[in-house]
């Protein structure tokens, strides 16, 4: 399917494509819910104590969740420098929006309680909401474009032709891409509401459960539309790939439906896991579609995952380090979730506006 090049093909190249998919899935599974919680702040948080309950559900873990993105970016740089170079320079403005959002939200969590003024808090809460909405929407639009394949053309450089994105910024907003963006927003909001339901007691718990159920049904509808468009419009060429994207697409819809049902019945834990599984399935379908061409349609220039890949030697070093350290990272991240496993109640939040210091 792809031209055989005079490059040392390494079996580690496909492995790293899979590992990078795993990093992105980890990012969306985890940061998906904390994006969602922050997006829901103005809707589910009726007063400041409500919002504090919500922010504190993700407080100890959001920073660690975000590192999944930084690691995914770093891994793309190391394992597929060509991919990293073409994608990051070609999607400059969308990535700028993502960065802008991430800066706003990162600061807002840390600073919202550092000054006893409601104006101050409202400002930072709004920043958290906008800062979570922007990356969610842009990444949804972006990944839909990878399913479709972003057009590439050659650009002469010092070292020969570089594959360069030729699709314009506005050209990224196709109907399918917009559905992708909406899907990410709705799905992550449902995931976030599910997390708040799982982590709280009392009124907040009930409100979050209802929201998770409602949003879950909405997400199911959008997911169904997305999966249909995906498979009807952009079905991958290979027969196995084609079968897989259909099966996984349908599975993703089913997972969201069952998640919504369970949210309605107060089965918070299972509902949350199923929603996460739906995100995993959705992302997996996209990466299956991106297999080989890594999300691009090159015209007049050679570009695929083999060309974009690092050397077997670099990949070997990366593979060894990752097999030692990724289990360790998973272990302590899981431990941190375990330490903060208890539910939070609004009553337990001091009404005193000055927060406990570090």
């Amino acid at each position, binding site marked *: 399917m792809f031209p055989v090049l005079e490059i040392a093909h390494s079996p580690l190249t496909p492995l790293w494509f899979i590992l990078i998919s795993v990093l992105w899935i980890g990012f969306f599974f985890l940061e998906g819910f904390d994006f969602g919680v922050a997006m829901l702040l103005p809707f589910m948080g009726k007063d400041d104590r409500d919002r504090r309950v919500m922010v504190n559900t993700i407080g100890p873990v959001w920073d660690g969740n975000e*590192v999944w993105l930084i690691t995914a970016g770093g891994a793309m740089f190391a394992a597929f420098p060509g991919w990293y170079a073409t994608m990051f320079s070609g999607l400059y403005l969308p990535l700028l929006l993502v960065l802008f959002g991430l800066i706003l939200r990162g600061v807002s969590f840390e600073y919202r309680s550092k000054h006893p003024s409601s104006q101050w808090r409202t400002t930072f809460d709004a920043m958290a909401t906008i800062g979570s909405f922007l990356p969610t929407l842009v990444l949804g639009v972006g990944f839909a474009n990878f399913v479709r394949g972003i057009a590439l053309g050659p650009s002469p450089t010092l070292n020969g032709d570089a594959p360069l994105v030729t699709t314009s910024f506005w050209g990224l907003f196709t109907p399918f891409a917009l559905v992708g963006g909406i899907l990410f927003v709705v799905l992550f909001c449902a995931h976030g509401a599910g997390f708040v339901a799982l982590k709280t007691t009392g009124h907040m718990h009930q409100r979050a459960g209802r929201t998770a159920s409602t949003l879950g049904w909405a997400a199911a509808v959008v997911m169904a539309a997305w999966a249909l468009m995906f498979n009807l419009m952009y079905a991958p060429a290979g027969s196995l790939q084609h079968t897989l994207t259909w099966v996984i697409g349908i599975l993703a819809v089913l997972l969201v439906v069952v998640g919504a049902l369970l949210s309605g019945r107060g089965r918070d834990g299972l509902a949350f896991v199923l929603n996460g599984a739906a995100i995993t399935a959705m992302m997996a379908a996209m990466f299956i579609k991106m297999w080989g061409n890594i999300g691009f349609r090159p015209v007049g220039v050679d570009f695929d995952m083999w060309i974009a890949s690092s050397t077997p030697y670099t990949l070997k070093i990366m593979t060894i380090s990752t097999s030692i350290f990724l289990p360790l990272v998973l272990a302590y991240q899981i431990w941190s979730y375990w330490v903060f496993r208890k539910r939070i109640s609004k009553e337990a939040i001091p009404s005193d506006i000055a927060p406990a210091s570090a």
Partner: protein
Amino acid sequence: MDAQLIARWQFGITTVYHFLFVPITIALSMLVAVLQTIWYKTSNDGYLKLTKFFGNLFLINFALGVVTGIVQEFQFGMNWSEYSRFVGDIFGAPLALEALLAFFMESTFIGLWIFGWDKLPKLAHLACMYLTAIGTMVSAVFILAANSWMQNPVGAKYNPVTRRAELTDFGALFTNPVFKATIFHQLAASYMVAGALVAAIAFWHLSRVARGRRTSQLSDAVEVEEARTWRWATKFGAWVLIIAGLGIVVSGDYQGKVMTDAQPMKMAAAEGAYQETSDFSILTIGTLDGSEEVFAIKVPGMLGYLGNGKWGSTIKGIDDLKNVNLNQYTYRRKDGTQTELQSSYQQVLRSHVAKDGVKLEPNIPVSYWTFRIMITLGMIAILAGLVMLVWLAKDRNPGHRRWLSVVLVLIPLMPLFANSFGWIFTEMGRQPWIVAGVLPTLSAVSPGVSAGTVLFSTILYTVLYGVLAVVEVGLFWKYMKKGLPDVAQADSDQDEDAPLSYAY
């Protein structure tokens, strides 16, 4: 203005800004861990108060370090895609490992530390701060290995088939002499900043509490306790500053020699030496093209020691080096050799770049002055540490004076800005190369990104960073003035249903 120039400004602005937070993060995390250790050992509330006080300042600073760091990672791909494509096989690995080994560790354990005060056993909670601090150091190791490779590209060669630089020896990144010199210099520089910060803040609070009285003259028990705590913290910070200052001198001396070996042009530029010389210029005012000297203070022979370890020996001047390099559009180390990558890429480089007329020397005035400002600021900081220690000798305490407050604000800024100027020197002194002797900066920029786009993002970052700076400084100021926090709390016998610590 072309995209390359704006992209360079963007990298400079975002990096210098990011690096205002990094040294504090690296060293203050460890100092907080040490304070917490002393509290753990002694159960003295004073140390717990200091832990929480400086812990809070650390967190305010940490937040901005994190959010500005992600911009740095993305920038390589966004603005410097041809750099990323060309060296990603080598440069990407340390960056990815930094995220995997360091960032996960820092971010997870800082979360556990902030929220874990009443959730974790005391020792486990303390370990969280140590792991955070170790994470920041691991991060420094990888990022400096990557940067040192740009200064001295070892362990790689050019592959004409893939048309890029490829890694041949990963270990070489960490045995790179430039890396070995830089890591110690940078860690010491970070500890100078944190030490100065702790000492200056504690000294100010001490002057406020004691107002020039001797500790034995204070009658109020609370005041006595507070004065003791701040006195101890001042001395602690001052010692950290002075010991790190010694580290700076020793590692800086070593670094000068390594730099002369690997990047002779950078050393010549730091001296503004156009011809071969052995004199160290403390201050030269004149035309910087070297033709006329208006006024100069020089130490004869000293440059030979700084550059070669031998008093009176000479280093090559800018013109000498330029003549050698211009010859074939090549780049050579002091002993005339090249790294494998430099020599294997030389042919391609010559045919492609010579016609573009790349200037072969860095900006001389910038190199000359940043080098001197770095050294001067660092020396003043060490001196300030000594003065504070002498001031506190015997039972004496400082008085509360307006001028003293101003001076105390300046003290941590000295080593902090010394860091900034040191980095400006290191990076500007490497020019015109993004990878010394291999890739010229102008051919590393993203070919498809317009000057307007880079300008737009530069303005966006600058405005956003400016606003954040105001918020950060405001918060830092507020928590700094607040003084020691109240730690009157129930002992660890917590009710099972007690809430988590709420930091947010």
